């Protein structure tokens, strides 16, 4: 059975390292993009099973990247979990309006992240 693929989109090397450390214990292939634009391009090219997307990034924010993913038939159905320091209700509403499926706040809690990922991809 082929491994599930997760696309990590964040301009922070620290967050990418944290996500890799948490997810490396599970059988997932991990791809990295450093901003929203690259995230949209890699999502179209790699067709990941799940995307973990930061919000505040150069070139293109996570909200805008989400909207572009939803507008492209090839990537419209890929679940997107927004990963952000903004835990306010307003920010979460914006995220869901942009088309994200779920939300996790930074600093990332490893158990919470794994639980959500497994919810979308299975163990």
């Amino acid at each position: 059975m082929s491994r599930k693929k997760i696309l990590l989109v964040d301009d922070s090397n620290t967050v990418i390292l944290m996500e890799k450390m948490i997810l490396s214990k599970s059988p997932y292939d991990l791809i990295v993009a450093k901003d929203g634009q690259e995230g949209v391009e890699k999502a179209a090219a790699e067709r990941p099973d799940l995307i973990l997307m930061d919000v505040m990034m150069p070139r293109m924010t996570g909200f805008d990247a989400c909207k572009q993913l939803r507008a492209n038939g090839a990537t419209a159905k890929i679940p997107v979990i927004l990963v952000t320091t903004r835990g306010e209700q307003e920010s979460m509403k914006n995220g869901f309006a942009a088309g994200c499926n779920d939300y996790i706040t930074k600093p990332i809690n490893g158990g919470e992240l794994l639980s959500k990922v497994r919810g979308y991809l299975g163990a």
Partner: protein
Amino acid sequence: MSTSPKRHLGAGREPCAVCGRVAGPAPAIDERLAALEREHRNLADRSTALEQQLAELGNQCVVMERLHGALEHAEVLAAIQDCVINVIGSEELAVFVPSEDGLELRPAQCFGVEGRGLAPVPVGAGVVGRAALGDGFVVGDAPPPPEAPDLTACVPLQAGDRLSGVLAIWKMLPHKPTFGPADRGVLDLLARHAASALQLTSVIARERAGRTA
């Protein structure tokens, strides 16, 4: 040796002739079950504690990787900022570095503190200046200084007896208002290793400048 199943039911327990269910007291089995349940809860608690410990160690590994993976002074400063935001959980921070003559501390890396009007401070003066002399502050150790009531921490970045800077952290993120023991562990690690990373990159920069002069 008898292999009758009745031997395993305990004294006073007989299966019902109609449905086969066992009634009556079974103190030995009940005690064993209770003991197993206690052991299970104990193991679950220990597993949770170990998972937490593992997560904290993972965060500390990330901090070390970020600090010591940088070869430029500016990259180390950026790594400190990144770690405070994404590992500790504050978007209001500043790193002050000593002037050439060591008499002053200048804000070299700032995030979310534009409204605070940070300026160079003499060593020994104010919260930042006092931290440079070893009189740092971390919330929970003492009440915050009156001139900075929303300060979470102000710690020297020191390796041995060499001061590389001072890290000041103000408010934590709204959804993470508490600065806990795990955050303290990260801050202590950050302070020590940021100091040596900053010193090392300064040495590398001076060496490069010497080679090109």
